[in-house]
């Protein structure tokens, strides 16, 4: 299967050569993959994500979207083809939930009736009954409900690709767990390709099909969760994967002892 997103020797330098955010990165993301990008803050993962929909342009190398060099695509049109879920949710506080969800369709010129039907469908999809929620303002919702709307907004214009920038980071653990599992189901049923940034390795391991580990602007590993958990010779990656492994082992032993007593 040809990749939907491809990075070919991409580098990004900020300022006059002062900071190298990405250094010669090449990866491919196949259709319907759920890819998590993990790494410490400042490792370059936000830069990587932003290059896909041209919020950031590379200093060198080529980013391809569905085979085309993104530099040949109109950035505005490209962004409208790709769903984006923001770290701080970023709902527009002056618009109702239905208007927030239908914002990209509105930019694409959908008519009012089609937008409103679509907003209701999506509210249903993220389990917020439209009759109750359609006309509310974001300020009336809890954090978890808001990010459900954030996901609905990303899906509104029927994109095939969703980019997520630490989408569940600000939520409490239970909300985060249910929301991320619900999203994974949507990913599968809607045949999406998802690229998600997270600093939570456990979240990445539990959700993603493949994990890209970024360390100091370079791809330190790009593998399945199973592959990474099995161990690598890269000490940085091993250190990163060590924590979920230890926690899993501890939990397993706790449950075994609990069952045995």
């Amino acid at each position: 299967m040809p990749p939907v997103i491809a990075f070919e020797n991409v580098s990004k330098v900020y300022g006059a050569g002062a900071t190298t955010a990405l250094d010669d990165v090449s990866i491919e993301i196949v259709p319907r993959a759920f890819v998590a990008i993990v790494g410490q803050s400042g490792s370059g993962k936000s830069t990587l994500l932003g290059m896909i929909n041209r919020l950031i342009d590379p200093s060198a190398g080529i980013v391809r979207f569905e085979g085309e060099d993104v530099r040949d695509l109109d950035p505005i049109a490209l962004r409208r083809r790709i769903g984006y879920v923001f770290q701080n949710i970023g709902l527009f506080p002056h618009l109702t939930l239905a208007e927030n969800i239908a914002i990209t369709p509105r930019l694409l010129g959908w008519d009012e009736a089609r937008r409103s039907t679509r907003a209701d469908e999506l509210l249903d999809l993220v389990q917020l009954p439209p009759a109750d929620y359609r006309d509310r303002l974001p300020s009336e919702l809890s954090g978890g409900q808001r990010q459900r709307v954030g996901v609905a907004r990303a899906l509104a214009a029927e994109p095939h690709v969703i980019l997520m920038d630490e989408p569940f980071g600000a939520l409490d653990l239970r909300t985060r767990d249910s929301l991320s599992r619900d999203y994974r189901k949507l990913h599968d049923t809607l045949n999406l390709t998802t690229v998600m940034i997270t600093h939570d390795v456990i979240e990445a391991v539990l959700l993603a099909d493949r994990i890209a580990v970024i360390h100091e602007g370079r791809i330190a590993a790009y593998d399945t969760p199973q592959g990474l958990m099995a161990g690598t010779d890269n000490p940085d990656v091993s250190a990163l994967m060590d924590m979920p492994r230890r926690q899993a082992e501890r939990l397993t032993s706790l449950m075994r002892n609990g069952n045995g007593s």
Partner: protein
Amino acid sequence: MFRDPAIADAWSRLPDYLGQHVLVSLTALALGLAISLPLSLYAVRRPHLRTVLLAAASIVQTIPGLALLALFYPLLLGIASLTAEYLGFDFSALGFLPSVLALALYSMLPVIRNTITGIEGIDPSLRRAAQGVGMTERQSLFMVELPLAMPVIMAGVRTAAVWVIGTATLATPIGQTSLGNYIFSGLQTQNWVFVLFGCAAAALLALAVDLLLALIERGAARRRRLPVAAGLAGLAVVVALALWPSLTAQRSGYIIGAKTFSEQYVLAALIAQRLEAHGLNASRREGLGSSIVFDALAANEIDAYVDYTGTIWANAMKRTDIRPRAQTLADVAAWLKSERGVAVAGALGFENAYALAMKRSEAERLGISSLADLARHAPQLTIAGDYEFLSRPEWAAIREAYGLNFRAQRAMQAEFMYPAAGNEVDVISAYTSDGRIAQFDLVVLDDPKGVMPPYDAVLLISPGRANDSALLAALKPLAGAIDVTLMRQANLRASQGEPPERVAQWMAARLKK
């Protein structure tokens, strides 16, 4: 309370004054918004332009309102003469136009500042979200940033509205009727009812407009149609009420100007009443600045007013020498005719000059009737002058000519100077037609050497009306008809709160035939 004549008089002027006030301030506000809103939106993403714009608007704000308004008059007069010469049309540089332009400029700072800070204050993550969902810069500005900044912008608009409505009271001296007419004429004629009425009306108007704008703002923020509609309807009612009198009233005929002191109000009323008695329509533009009223007459924007030979001699003709009274009058009339085309309908018969005055009893006891007599006693006496007099060339001239050396000299506010004569001080500077000379029983000392420049009151006619026989026939009888005693008594009445119109009627019955 409506039976009090001053209050009834104030009420009767309200439709005109309030209507004009609303008209000029809302036009200025609309023009100011039409310029400053797009300008700030254009500048908000351009840091250099933004800095320049904010600095310029701040500098405008530091210019006192009165000065800003007054500056626009000569500016527009110059432009009007240029367009008349090169484009074949001119426009009135008096009143509405300069007021609207100055007030519009004045309204810009709060709008620009609040628009820029309002948009800059928006959570940057929302701007990124707008970009991420596929908005262009423009869509981000109009769909996200502007609506979110609206409360801050509206706060700026409300500040601007209150400023403009308050500052519009200062449009009176450049010939724009406003609620300031109450204040300027009230201060001159000691009519405190008028002053308070003007202040209260302006404050209430500002409050009302502010509340209506607040209603619109809150309605818009909560996306409720009703308060927005109610606020807009309220504004529409204010505008309709304001425009009603100016749409229905006939404002034609002769325009009589008056400067900012009570004698001028009385004489303008007297002139207007004479014209009406002759079946001519007359309206008054009162409270005009001294040089503005002269320029306005020369530019045919008003038709007649009373000025003083000494004022024209010094200010318009730039003369510093002193000539006898009759010769000054002749020179001024000839100069006005040849240089400005202004006609002198006649000297009214009195002077409003600077003079020294003493308590009558004291002057008689010391045997002083002239400045020459005064010189002999001056070393034992103290003099008080108003702040302006003691720095004028007249004061230096008489001290030198008569060898006046007082024991002490003090600067005083005119209000305190007259009662002090004969008590705290012996001699004061006075205006010869001032009503308080009679009130406090003072005598004006003669000037046998003719050192004080003459200030004959002269009735001036605009170039366009210089050959208007109906006007001249109505006004001719005023020439030589007012002696200084009559004018003093009239000024005394006016300064004690009698309306200028009634003082003018009182005078008309006592004119020298």
